[in-house]
């Protein structure tokens, strides 16, 4: 793997918690790796599996979905649904051995700026180690 590889990570952040968490991390001047392209969604359950797949096919090396902790969803139960959907997609990727580690779901509340920085930095490190995803480099896909 080339040393200068800069991963392309897509982050779907829930408007009510993780997006505010990212904001807090920024205003707290925490160091965050600059590889995450943030897409603000109204709820983590807005992210359907096709959006994730699309991201992978169109150039993402990793996809992070972040939402409110279970029980704290702004819409009461959205994150329970996305948790199931995530488990399903992850299982498919695992069964077909399609690098399931490139997909992550994390609960980050609006007050967890520090956790946001940690999660993003750790995920960016993991993806850098994995290298470019074959999903968007293989011309036969």
């Amino acid at each position: 793997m080339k040393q200068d590889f800069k991963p392309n990570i897509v982050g779907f952040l829930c408007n009510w918690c993780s997006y505010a968490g990212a904001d807090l991390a920024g205003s707290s001047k925490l160091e965050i790796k600059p590889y995450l392209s943030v897409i603000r969604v109204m709820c983590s359950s807005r992210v359907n599996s096709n959006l994730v797949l699309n991201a992978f096919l169109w150039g993402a090396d990793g996809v992070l979905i972040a939402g409110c902790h279970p029980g704290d969803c702004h819409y009461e139960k959205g994150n329970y649904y996305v948790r199931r959907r995530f488990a399903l997609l992850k299982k498919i990727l695992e069964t077909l051995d399609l690098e399931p580690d490139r997909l992550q779901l994390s609960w980050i509340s609006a007050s967890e700026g520090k956790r946001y920085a940690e999660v993003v930095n750790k995920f960016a490190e993991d993806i850098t180690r994995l290298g470019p995803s074959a999903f968007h480099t293989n011309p036969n896909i």
Partner: protein
Amino acid sequence: MSNVLKIKKGVEQGVNELLKFLLESEKVKGIFTLRKMNENGAVSYSLITHPKELKNAVPLFPLMPVNAGKILSGFTLKKAINEPIAAVLRSCELRAFIELIKRTQGSLENFLLISSTCGGVYPLKSLTDGTFKEQVSQYWESAKNAEIASDIRPTCAACEYFIPQQADMTIAIVGKNDLQQECSIFLNTKKGEEFTIGAPGNIVSEEIDTKETTKLREKRQDQKKKLFDEFEKNGFGIKALVKTFAACLSCHGCSKACPICYCTLCDFDSKTHEYLPSSHEIELEQKGGIRIPPGTIFFHIGRMIHMAVSCVNCGMCSDVCPVNIPVSTIFSKVGDSLQKLFDYLPGKDIEEPVPSGTYKEEEFTEIGE
């Protein structure tokens, strides 16, 4: 133990006799069953309302021109049928119908469901390449001896759910030594018993699970393991997936034949996934070359996400594939792991919600932490 209607005739004539009785006694207004279309062995599902049309009915014919669950869903999509119809269908077709009803695509109301312990069906291409007549001769012999008939659909040979769960009546085939002399029809529900009052034959008490059915189930489980092992030999990962789907024409025939894929406009045929010149441009920039038609792997993984958890392993997808991709094996494999994850068996219980449409608060608690 359940009540069994015994008709002193070969199984095929026996079932026809019962269907004739149901129609003539006006207990049902119509019969939905397979019917012979010509002498070459072509069959088609038909709705029959006059007893004289029953002469060409072949309810147990080992071919599945289309998954009947899909047709019954079409009948009842707008509203339930208002007069009783007896439908003869296989275990996986019944399961598919139930999965569709759970997705509000139909109704069970007024259906008398007649199913059978299933010996499997032959690939449709055996009709066109002329091997069917030769193969079918040993079909009943294999069913009698609870063996896997050779040359049936690979997914049928690996199917362990050949005893239907939701049927009102079940025609016993697997492991029945006296198939040519006697027809045994298990009456599983009160409805099944009511409809057979006055039917020819006598009622005895028997168990549907026998030594023979257990034997066949074990054989099929072995076969399933073999099928998966063989598939896994090619390895997984993106490279293997690209290889498997290399020949895919993007005809989407698998999704059209799939009973669970019910969407009138598939997401992948819609504008959402239309490949615009700009999409090609982006991909070309990244990869230096693109496959045309694009998005085949995406289509298959996307379809897995949508329906694999409800996959009933009927094998229609592999059967219609013009380039012989083992679609059903891959979907069985993925479906199997998803169904284990959610502890879910498609078509088993009509009250049980589809996993992707529900949740439990206390599950997957390790995710996201």
